[in-house]
């Protein structure tokens, strides 16, 4: 399993009060089985998890969808990390990444891209767009443990 980490450091710097010590992760995947798996893996690493089945629903949850204005919700400010599948119908993980990075509110939140395919051009494209890490599926417990360390460092 290979992981490609973005070498620049990212600070969250949102200054909101976090109710608990558990990082809140938004997990996006159109595959039923993978959604369940990533949810359990994150919960095992003591993360609070919200899942979304596609990019649009993820944006809606974060309050970033085209039809929403910034006062719609403040879910986005509570999310410490977003982990998304690359291949999804409608909006790919890459397109979702771009939308997140374009948002002033969410641009500093680490975004992890997952894919079952090891395609260097795809990986580079995501890293250049600001993805924190690119991970290969299927995910294992050790992958998520490493992720969690990353999130905790980011929050520091």
């Amino acid at each position: 399993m290979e992981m490609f980490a973005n070498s620049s450091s990212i600070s969250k710097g949102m200054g909101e009060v976090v109710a608990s010590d558990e990082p809140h992760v938004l997990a996006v995947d159109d595959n039923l089985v993978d959604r369940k798996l990533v949810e359990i893996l994150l919960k095992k690493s003591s993360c609070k998890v919200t899942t979304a089945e596609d990019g649009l629903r993820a944006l809606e949850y974060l309050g970033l969808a085209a039809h929403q204005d910034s006062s719609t919700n403040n879910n986005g400010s509570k999310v410490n990390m977003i982990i998304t599948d690359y291949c999804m119908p409608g909006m790919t993980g890459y397109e979702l990444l771009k939308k997140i990075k374009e948002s002033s509110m969410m641009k500093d939140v680490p975004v992890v891209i997952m894919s079952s395919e090891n395609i260097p051009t795809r990986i580079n494209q995501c890293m250049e767009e600001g993805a924190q890490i690119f991970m290969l599926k299927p995910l294992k417990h050790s992958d998520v443990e490493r992720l969690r360390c990353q999130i905790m460092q980011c929050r520091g």
Partner: protein
Amino acid sequence: MEVGQLQRSFVEYMASLFREGFLDAQFSQLQQLQDDSNPDFVVEVVSLFFEDSERLLNDLTMALDQPNVDFKQVDAHVHQLKGSSSSVGAQRVKNCCVPFRNCCEEQNTETCLRCLQQIKQEYLLVKNKLQTLFELAFFLATVGAADCSCWRSNSHGAITQCLTGLASPSEGKCLLNSVCREEFSFSDFLVDHIINFIHQIGLCLL
């Protein structure tokens, strides 16, 4: 009663699933994730896999039945199936997906149909194996608990009698049947599997 021996045979059965390539290391990952806070994790994820796969196999059948096959759509379904099977460790199903995607690229309906047939077979095989595994695990948990000195119900004695009685198959079978159904309310499916399994592994209980 030889619960220990039964348990060892169960472990051997599971090992054979790995050896024969039905399951790979990812399935072990799932097993490792199961614990007291997620006691039914493996069954839950595998059930989702069954649900997802059956839907996808239906969609694939319909998609390939069209006069003008949309190979992009077919490929998308196979990609999904590859993902799910990979995530649960259903190795043989996953391995069927690669040639299938090649056939989609070649836009060849006939070879795609053959791939579909193959994948359906592999899916049914692994589904059967996994269902057997789960139900046997449940059986062992129940009967295994009977071995604890703290459980002193009649059922324990009856099961012991049954399993010993399997040395004379027909009588033992009847007894096992009635105990499993009446005392434990095991399904027909499970009872059949228990009987077959015990005979298959040639358990000598004398």
